[in-house]
């Protein structure tokens, strides 16, 4: 190898090394932030290495500037503006765009063959890149739409019809794929493109909101595969290795998340929405509950005032109501009053595993007060008051006792062991799993109906009017 050619290769090697260290570091709390910076640096190096390798015309530079300007600016603005509560759908959006990028490259090479007629390897890579890229894009967009509440789960996707639809689409993809090499820019390419795009929608649409994080993680792994395939298309080893790395690491992360939620990947992908077929009683009409005790914020405040040990169980509803700051204020007030306060964090609390930790950290809740499920569960019997804020399925005692429940076997927070439980909820509507929660009917449970933020502020003013917090 001649000496001048050595530099780009060296830069590529360093970039791969830094990317690997970045991914590794991201899995430890102490190193995560610097690891993220390291990965970003690696990406910059990789781009630099490519730019000094390729002779670029001024016209090419212009188009690079346009793409960089628009994409980079939009990315910057999105990253700065998006609220922490909307993190899952943001990741889905970014991910879909990554898939789209690989797809567009493959289309460009297929239609215009810039590097001469593509050989068999390039053709196969184009097929994979279009297929995976399109599924990643439409799947991620559907996932985002469902998380945002823009798209609901249509009824037909909950019966076996969807399998028929998806299998036909898969067959169409296959037909497009095998006939593609004969006519590179012809109909097979467009059949493949269309069928893969629809397949991405078809497989994501039936999946329920609770399983969406797993789907996003899986799609994230796919976008790595799409990048690796694009690496074969344009002949970039760095792209192949980085894409493969992210693809494989994403797969492991998906598996880790499934374990945390007590779901198998197969049941997430093919099982449809958990219990989504017949939501109990629909919206907020009581859903078949009897023996419900409801109480006002005043009564709840009185119980808090008398308590020695209080545990908050924050859930999705807290995130939606943006009530994490009000919650922090309330616990500060209780601590001033001498109450021992902690937070019970279920592994899938919030909208993605780890999401609740991010939200509470944003509200300045001390790290030591956030207790994970295994730590807090033995503590519930000696807890005076538990306040469940917008969580539902993760505190359902049926998961332990009722083997007929769809939740059976899922690890839950054992709040039913506490002396008194208040559930702050907007209505008796079902959770993601669409089933009744036996906790709500227990004698020690009282429901406080209302928006989490409004109830918390109500509690705050009640406690203040009792003279708590005044020195």
């Amino acid at each position, binding site marked *: 190898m001649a000496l001048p050619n050595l530099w780009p290769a060296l830069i590529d090697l360093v970039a791969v090394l830094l990317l690997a260290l970045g991914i590794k570091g991201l899995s430890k709390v102490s190193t995560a932030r610097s690891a993220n910076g390291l990965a970003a640096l690696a990406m910059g190096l990789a781009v630099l290495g490519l730019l000094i390798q390729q002779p670029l015309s001024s016209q090419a530079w212009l188009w690079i500037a346009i*793409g960089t300007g628009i994409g980079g600016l939009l990315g910057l603005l999105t990253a700065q503006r998006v609220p922490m509560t909307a993190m899952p759908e943001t990741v889905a959006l970014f991910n879909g765009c*990554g898939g789209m990028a690989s797809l567009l490259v493959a289309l460009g090479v297929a239609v215009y063959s810039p590097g001469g007629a593509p050989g068999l390897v390039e053709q196969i890579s184009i097929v994979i890149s279009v297929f995976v890229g399109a599924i990643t894009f439409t799947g991620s967009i559907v996932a985002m739409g469902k998380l945002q509440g823009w798209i609901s789960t249509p009824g037909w996707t909950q019966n076996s019809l969807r399998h028929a639809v998806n299998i036909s689409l898969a067959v169409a993809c296959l037909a497009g794929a095998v006939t593609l090499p004969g006519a590179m820019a012809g109909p097979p390419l467009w059949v493949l493109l269309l069928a893969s795009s629809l397949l991405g929608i078809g497989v994501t649409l039936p999946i329920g909101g609770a399983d969406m994080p797993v789907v996003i993680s899986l799609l994230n792994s796919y976008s790595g595969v799409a990048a690796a395939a694009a690496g074969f298309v344009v002949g970039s080893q760095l*792209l192949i290795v980085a894409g493969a790395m992210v693809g*494989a690491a994403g797969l*492991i992360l998906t598996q880790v998340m499934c374990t945390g939620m007590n779901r198998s990947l197969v049941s997430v992908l093919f099982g449809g929405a958990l219990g989504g077929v017949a939501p109990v009683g629909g919206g907020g009409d009581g859903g078949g509950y009897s023996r419900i005790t409801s109480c006002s914020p005043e009564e709840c405040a009185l119980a808090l005032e008398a308590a020695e040990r209080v545990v908050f169980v924050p859930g999705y509803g807290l995130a939606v109501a943006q009530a994490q700051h009000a919650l922090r204020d309330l616990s500060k007030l209780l601590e001033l009053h001498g109450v021992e306060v902690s937070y019970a964090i279920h592994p899938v609390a919030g909208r993605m595993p780890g999401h609740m930790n991010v939200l509470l950290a944003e509200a300045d809740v001390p790290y030591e007060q956030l207790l994970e499920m295994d730590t807090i569960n033995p503590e519930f019997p000696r807890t005076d008051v538990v306040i469940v804020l917008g969580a539902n399925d993760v505190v359902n005692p049926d998961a332990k006792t009722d083997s007929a429940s769809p939740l059976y076997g899922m690890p839950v927070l054992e709040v039913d062991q506490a002396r008194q439980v208040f559930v702050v909820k907007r209505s008796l509507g079902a959770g993601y799993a669409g089933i009744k929660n036996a906790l709500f009917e227990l004698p020690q449970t009282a429901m406080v109906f209302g928006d989490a933020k409004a109830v918390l502020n109500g509690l705050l003013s009640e406690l203040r009017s009792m003279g708590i917090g005044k020195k």
Partner: protein
Amino acid sequence: MSALTQALWVLLLGSLLGLELIGKVPPTLHTPLMSGANAISGITVLASLTLIAQANGQVPLLLLGSLSLGFALFNVVGGFLVTDRMLAMFSRKSSRSGGAS
């Protein structure tokens, strides 16, 4: 060794490395890790840039390459920044509880 075999070796070793990199991840980090890995998958910027470099003045190719570059960079820039935003909150916490960072 042909270019193809070499590329397949790279694919194999890259996948194996990826499988080994993540072992045990605390649930706290699932969201940031997913977001960070997602930013890295935007490495497909390299493919977009190569497409532009090989376009040889063909405007449709330049356009496709530029569009693809835009999408990929949206993924990369947004992904890394948003991951940093999330992780910044953790480091603020650990510095208060006396941890190093």
